[in-house]
């Protein structure tokens, strides 16, 4: 390592510079990413409440820099209790985000519809404003005179009388002044009434009969399929209730957790509710009514509104509202002259709210004009029963206009060609379609017969299909017959071998050489061999292989050994009396062949 004039190592100086650079870059990145997500939001934990309830309000500030408490408008008719602040810092994909939440609990003084917000904060001399939210406050039910209990379950419905298919809100509230746990809920089951859960349970504080309670609220949407009178039996909720200690001596631990004894199981049931479901009125019912109930609106747009011939535009119709949103019908677009229409799959999106399910159905069509000019996309309509106004309504879109201009021809680019070849070629132009028509008839006489496309006649086809396998089968049969004939011929010849041998031996007395010669001829003929010299061992092996007994094999080997002895001792020309013995041995062997 080399050192500079002060004696410090140079490499370390370089590391320090690099670190300082990285630190500065990191700080710039953090500051830029912090400033990138500046916003102030205001939210409530619900959109409906009673004058007895407290509502949690959160003002979230994601603005970098120091800010004071936010100033919130529209809360003059509320009692406000601060709920503290919380700060959350997150690193996501290298970006840091900081968010401070100011929490308040607000309790309305009187019923009404309130628009809360915006919340405003001033940071670095600049004002940041939030959104506004709507809160619907109803009068709390009169609970005066009822003895307040520590824990009880209460059920409510939004309307006691409604129409078929009109969604109702079933509200279940658990009021408690004691700690509870291990909650379990049993909802009443009634045929023709469908329960659908609306969002997550809410927890807040409420005043009931002059007592402050913690409330656990669950919301369900109910839709009746048929008209009639229904009784919704009480829902029951099982739980473990923790009673407070009654001992006068305080626990050394003052934590509230230790102020409750061990729990006891308990079950609470809400009151039954009577419902009357009436059929939808027949008066004013449209012929094409699609059983849609609620409040809806429809909108349409063509994007883009002007295109060149040959291009396509997209028509979007959006039907949105609240009610039995799953019954929103698929809209059929009327035919448009000289425009080809391709429908896309409709998309239905539903979301639970405090007032029931809301939904949006988006239907899209691709429009491909077949000519230039201006095309009017006709309006489409939807019927529904407006449960708020107790009447049938028809909503429709505005007719849309699509303008189709002549096809845009790209400017001929000859510069590139000239650069490549050194000489500009002729200016290319797109082949333009000037008219459309069908091509003429096929009038040649050969077209009458069908030419190549003619189907082969049945017999002809099957002949060509069956002929090759039949030829193969015939050839295989011939080959097999030929092979069998060859084998049979050999067998016949081999069976005649003994006759020939006997004939040779009985006509005259034979010497050793002649007998060996006759035996070799017998073996070659009988077993289809081509032996030059037959030794006793070979003869024994051949016979034994054919299933001849050991004794017969030994007899043959002895006889053949004697003959060979005679030949090799100079007695080969001498007459021997072995012919009959050999005939006997061979006959015996013939009988023993397997």
């Amino acid at each position: 390592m080399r050192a500079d004039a002060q004696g410090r190592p140079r490499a370390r100086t370089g590391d320090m510079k690099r670190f300082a650079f990285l630190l500065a870059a990191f700080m710039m990145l953090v500051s830029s990413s912090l400033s990138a997500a500046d916003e102030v939001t205001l939210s409530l934990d619900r959109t409906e409440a009673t004058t007895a309830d407290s509502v949690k309000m959160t003002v979230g500030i994601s603005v970098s820099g120091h800010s004071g408490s936010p100033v919130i408008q529209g809360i003059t008719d509320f009692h406000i209790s601060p709920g503290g602040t919380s700060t959350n810092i997150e690193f996501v994909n290298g970006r840091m985000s900081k968010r401070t939440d100011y929490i308040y609990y607000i309790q309305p003084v009187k019923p009404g519809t309130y628009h809360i917000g915006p919340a405003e904060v001033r940071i670095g001399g600049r004002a940041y404003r939030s959104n506004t939210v709507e809160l619907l406050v109803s009068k709390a039910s009169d609970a005066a005179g009822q003895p307040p209990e520590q824990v009880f379950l209460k059920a409510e419905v939004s309307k006691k009388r409604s129409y078929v298919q009109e969604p109702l809100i079933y509200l279940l509230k658990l009021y408690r002044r004691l700690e509870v746990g291990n909650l379990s809920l049993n909802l009443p089951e009634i045929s023709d009434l469908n329960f659908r859960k609306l969002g997550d349970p809410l927890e807040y504080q409420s005043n009931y009969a002059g007592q402050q309670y913690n409330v656990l609220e669950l919301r369900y949407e109910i839709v009746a399929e048929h008209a009639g009178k229904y009784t919704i039996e009480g829902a029951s909720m099982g739980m473990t209730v923790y009673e407070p200690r009654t001992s006068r001596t305080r626990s050394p631990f003052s934590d509230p957790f230790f102020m409750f004894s061990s729990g006891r199981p308990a079950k609470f049931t809400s009151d039954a509710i009577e419902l009357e479901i009436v059929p939808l009125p027949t008066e004013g019912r449209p012929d094409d009514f699609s059983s849609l109930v609620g409040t809806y609106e429809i909108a349409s747009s063509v994007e883009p509104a002007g295109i060149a011939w040959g291009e396509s535009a997209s028509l979007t119709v959006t039907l949105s509202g609240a009610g039995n949103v799953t019954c929103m019908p698929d809209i059929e677009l009327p035919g448009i002259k000289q425009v080809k229409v391709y429908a896309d799959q409709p998309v239905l999106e539903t979301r639970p709210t405090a007032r029931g399910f809301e939904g949006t159905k988006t239907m899209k069509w691709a429009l491909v004009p077949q000519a230039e000019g201006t095309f009017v996309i006709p309006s489409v309509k939807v019927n529904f029963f407006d449960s708020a106004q107790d009447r049938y309504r028809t909503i429709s879109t505005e007719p849309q206009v699509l303008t189709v201009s002549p096809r845009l021809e790209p400017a001929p680019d000859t510069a590139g060609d000239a650069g490549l070849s050194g000489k500009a070629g002729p200016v290319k132009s797109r082949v333009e379609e000037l008219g459309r028509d069908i091509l003429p008839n096929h009038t040649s006489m050969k077209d009458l017969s069908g030419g190549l496309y003619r189907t082969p006649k049945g017999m002809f086809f099957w002949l060509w299909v069956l002929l090759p396998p039949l030829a193969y089968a015939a050839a295989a049969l011939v080959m097999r017959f030929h092979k069998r004939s060859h084998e049979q011929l050999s067998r016949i010849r081999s069976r005649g071998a003994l006759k020939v041998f006997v004939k040779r031996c009985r006509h005259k007395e034979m010497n050793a050489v002649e007998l060996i010669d006759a035996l070799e001829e017998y073996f070659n003929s009988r077993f289809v061999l081509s032996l030059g010299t037959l030794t006793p061992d070979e003869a024994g092996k051949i016979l034994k292989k054919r299933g001849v007994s050991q004794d017969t094999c030994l007899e043959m080997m002895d006889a053949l050994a004697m003959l060979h002895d005679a030949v090799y001792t100079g007695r080969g020309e001498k007459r021997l009396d072995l012919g009959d013995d050999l005939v006997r041995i061979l006959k015996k062997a013939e009988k023993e062949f397997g």
Partner: protein
Amino acid sequence: MRRTVIAILSVVFIAFSLAVIGLAQDHSAEEVFYRANQAYKQGDFTQAAQAYGQLIEMGYANGHLYYNLGNSFFRSGQEGKAILMYERAYLLMPRDADLLFNMNYVKDQRVDALQEGQGVLASTFFWLNSLNLAEFYRVFVICNLLLFTALILRLFMNPSWMPPLIITAAFVWSAVAGSVAMKWYQVNFDDRAVVLEKEMDVLSGPQEGDTVLFRLHEGTIVYEERTEDQWVLIQLSADKRGWVRAESIEGVRM
């Protein structure tokens, strides 16, 4: 001897008569074909369509005649029948450029904006639409000839290249045989039908008073499911099914 001569003369006479009848029929068909072409040229498209139809009934059904018949129907303002004849011609001559051009042109004139699928069979075995059934038969005959020739040769000689040759030939033979079977099924079990009326209501049941589910227009291709009395249950897509009167549509199957 005399009997033999009489028998031979009888056979010759019968054969000659059949040939004369055949030639007369050919001449008659050529006359009708010429008359149909002339009528088409002179703008008498109804007459031309009748003459081409007559030829098909006489047994001269081929792709060219169906193509000409489709042109005649289109010229006489019957787009539905024109598409029907083009579809039949397509089964017989799937690569004819004139036919493909005219069929696309006439289908473009239809009111209903529907995208036609090829069907599971044709899209999986994509080569099925490249040849017609007759051509598949011919290819199969050639493969059949090659395979069994190789097998016969193997009986007499067995060089080292013979087993792989036979395995390859057997594989090709199996593929072509399968294609012939599928094409035969495609042609003989074609459940497509073409809407012949200018506008046709599709009902929820096989009765006049039933609910109108949707409306189709001339030339649209639907799929027949089953028939009850004079009503046919058709399917357009998974969620578009309904009943129509039998005379409102006509099947593509010949």
